């Protein structure tokens, strides 16, 4: 059954809440929280998080386009926007370019 956007957001908030607890980040993570300016993400942090999201949902998603857009336009990304992105691509046909490459 396809997940609702709210369930995706809950998952992201929970996961980011766990992570930020490890960093002793005092503020609660909200839908409006910005990954880079508020949570102090480096680009590599975003890459690892995106990979973990793909693993959790077992669905390849075109995160490269999202990250490239962020880098090119020097913009930030809120948790809510990330949930929207995942929601859009969950259940969408897998792009051959981002399909999982398995050993043998």
């Amino acid at each position, binding site marked *: 059954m396809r997940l609702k956007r709210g369930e995706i957001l809950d998952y992201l908030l929970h996961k980011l809440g766990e992570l930020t607890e*490890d960093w002793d980040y005092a503020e609660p993570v909200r839908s409006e929280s910005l990954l880079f300016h508020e949570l102090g993400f480096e680009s590599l942090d975003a890459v690892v998080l995106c*990979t973990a999201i793909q*693993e959790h949902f077992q669905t*390849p998603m075109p995160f490269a386009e999202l990250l490239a857009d*962020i880098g090119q336009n020097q913009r930030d990304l809120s948790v809510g926007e990330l949930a929207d992105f995942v929601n859009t691509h969950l259940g969408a046909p897998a792009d051959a370019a981002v399909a999982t490459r398995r*050993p043998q």
Partner: protein
Amino acid sequence: MSIKTLLIGLDGATFSVLDPLMEQGVMPFLQSFFAEGARAGLRTIVPPLTPPAWTSLMTGRKPGQHGVFDFFSMDSPTSRHIRFFNSNDVQCDTIWTLANAHGLRTTTLNYPAMFPPPHIAGYVVPGWVPWKQLRLACWPADLFDKLKTIPGFNQREMAMDIKLEEKATEGISDHASDLGPWIDLHARREQNITHVLKYLSAEDPSDLTAVLFDGVDKLQHLCWRYLRPEDDKPLTEDWELQLREMSIKYFRCLDSLLQQLCAMAGPEATVVMASDHGFGPTYDVLHINTWLERNGYLTWSEAAQSRDTQGALLGVGQVAKHTWLMDWEKTKAFATTPTSNGIYIVVSDGTTPGVPKSEYEGFRRKLMDDLRQIRDLQTGERMVTEIYTREEAFAGPHCASGPDLTLILRDGGLVSILPSPETVSKRPMVSGSHRPVGIFGARGPNIRKGLISSELSILDVAPTVLYSLGVPIPEELQGKVPEEIYVEGHLKNNPVRKAAAGSASHGQETAPAPSELEDEEVVLERLRELGYIE
């Protein structure tokens, strides 16, 4: 259960640094380790670079077989976009999965190409993961919570801290106040990794236990001058001598950690020590894309000519910018990363710009001939000593993903990919760079004592580890068990067992692959971590 085999990786370790340190009494344990076991030079693959070389060590196969060529790979053979390497790039079994397939547990700490982590029986803490995300990278999923219960566990000093690495590689002024804390951090990081491994091994030991210390590589990149002052002008300033002391202190610390780990493994375990490549001094910079441009192979874009592309010391961060630095209507050959000395040829499919397929061989041959003519302007010496074609260096099912040409420079150095006023320049001071021959050591109940063996191949490490575990060695592995390191009669009584090709094929069950990474900042940060300063 006890540890059967302990594999210790020392990234970039070379006897040219370790031997003097052992002779000076800085590394007495390592000296005794080699006296009680076997040692050899360990020849790595082409290119001598961390991701492909460690993957060759873990798989017993060359890059054309395992699929990892560089820190970055072209998204496809026809793409101009690059993405960062990860565990899904490894296209064959590893020693971890092979051991696992034979019912053995594995614990592996800080090895590259391990994120997303393989779902093996045991524990995985991947290398090349930022500290904030360590929870997401560990396997099994509850491992991180277990690590947090270890007294003294320091997440920040266990994994990568990009900001600190940036500070060291970006703002370095070669003064003790800048570089010193960075050296100390790496000693503490190795201590943290050791601390975690000792805890996990005490609680729940694995048959195959593996750890990688990568501070060796990082220090040798940035501190070569202080580790081997004989390769440059003598150290005279107090701060220079202080940095030498701090560098030596790192290796003294490492020696103590090696001793602790070998004691933990116990006398019945086989301990294998290996590096992914060697190290040596580098003095030159070959600005390869500038040379290609001046010789008609590459055309800079208008953007490249109108914008500041040097970015001070952070030129390496421009690696992802090649997509806009070059005029793709006219460029026929280019280097896309400063890490592997690889040159790609743009091949036309009949509708796109580039070299027609029918002219490819002739074009490549002329390019090779021209590259061989690059000379040191002062001495006239050839700058490029060897050139490998894709077929020579990367034979195998993934050959097409490798660069068309791979250059070996006369001082083992790396190319610069940025526009430059000159094609060849001198570094302001000696720096450390990769070399093809690293180190191998082994100690254990059946290993000969005090043997200095002839050179081995990095491809031999996987068969050696598997043999020590009693795991049959798949036919497709490209290395061999080095018979000479074992005591007489051991191999006769315990013959190497082979497994038919394709009989393992359990692969690494992991997360879906991250998609191609065009975010230049990602590339920049990872390369900063390397310390590849141009």
